[in-house]
């Protein structure tokens, strides 16, 4: 496997520093939420996980379309790396959302449009990764997973706009007009932390995918 690039190391370092400072701000500096109290602070993990899982899935979608049009295998490496990152962030989103919902709404889970579409989003991209693991020819795997990624991506705008298209228990998107300015700042700070970690992660994931690809594309060793 290739060694990590300077950019990849830098992204991890910046992301880690931002994450530590950002969580310090979120836990100790920013005021608690008026209605929710201290439990409202889970927002600073939940919302960055939501934003960056959508970003990761979008990168995966762009790379999948890019692979299908250009045939460049490095696009497939980007697609799988960002799909994996998206699935992990999506799992974090669902877990923190559940922990958030119990004390505020009163339930761990309810089948409202936002929650359901977020769960479907996770399942479909897990499906894409499962599909990858059962197809062994690298070229065919890249094509199949690119097509399935495009299909899975249909649900991303549905998830994002679900709170506006349907009645739900989940509130619609907040904006700086509905949110305390200190909270907006800390939220964005933590989102940038996760963004940098995501960029580092994409670098690592691409290197792993490239090394798997190289191994599988190599001609078989001559056996004695």
């Amino acid at each position, binding site marked *: 496997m290739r060694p990590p690039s300077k950019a990849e190391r830098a992204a991890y370092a910046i992301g880690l520093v931002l994450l530590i400072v950002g969580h310090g701000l979120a836990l100790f500096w920013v*005021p*608690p*939420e*008026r*209605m*929710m*109290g*201290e439990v*409202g602070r889970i*927002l600073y993990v939940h919302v960055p996980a939501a934003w960056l899982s959508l970003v990761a899935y979008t990168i995966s979608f762009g790379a999948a*379309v890019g692979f*299908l*049009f250009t*045939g460049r295998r490095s696009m497939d490496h980007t697609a799988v790396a960002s799909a994996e990152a998206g699935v992990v962030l999506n799992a974090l989103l669902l877990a923190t959302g559940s922990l958030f919902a119990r*004390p*505020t*709404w*009163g*339930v761990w889970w*309810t*089948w*409202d*449009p936002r929650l359901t579409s977020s769960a479907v989003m996770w399942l479909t991209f897990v499906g894409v990764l499962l599909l990858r693991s059962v197809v062994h020819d690298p*070229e*065919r795997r890249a*094509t199949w997973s*690119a*097509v399935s990624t*495009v*299909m899975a*991506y*249909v649900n991303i*705008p*549905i998830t994002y706009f679900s709170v506006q*298209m*349907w*009645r*739900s*228990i989940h*509130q*619609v*998107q*907040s*904006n700086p007009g*509905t*949110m*305390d300015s*200190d*909270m907006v700042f800390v939220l964005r700070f933590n989102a940038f932390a996760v963004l940098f970690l995501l960029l580092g992660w994409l670098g690592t994931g691409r290197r792993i995918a490239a090394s798997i690809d190289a191994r599988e594309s190599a001609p078989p060793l001559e056996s004695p």
Partner: protein
Amino acid sequence: MKTATQRRLFAVAALAVAGSALGMVSYSDMGEDLVYYWSPTELRANANAKGATVRLGGLVVPGTLQWNRDDGTATFDVTDGSATVRVRSQTNPPQMFREGIGVVVEGKLASDGAFDTQRVMVKHSNEYQAPEGGHPPDVARTLVVDPS
């Protein structure tokens, strides 16, 4: 091994299927039949509502909340502005529950026109604000000690 043309054909086909699926969801009337909760007006208007387990959503009417502290039950009115339904709760609502807030309750419309529920959920708005006066409100405590 796929040729470049085949692969591009896959891309166009996948994008077309994905795009039309998204268009169908966006512009169809799915939302008309698939609703997460009914408003009080819809609950009143629907003759089949009695006895079926449904969700009812609306705002808790200020001044209508009555607690029974001995068994933890509560009654309150839920409104959408035009119709109002009296809700009998057999459960402890979550800590954010209060008069004037949005709720979604799961249960059944009783024959006397009230709504019996075992599950009260609070619908929070998209507002996130610092507490007035600089201290976090101890909401759980104020609900138990002073329900006003």
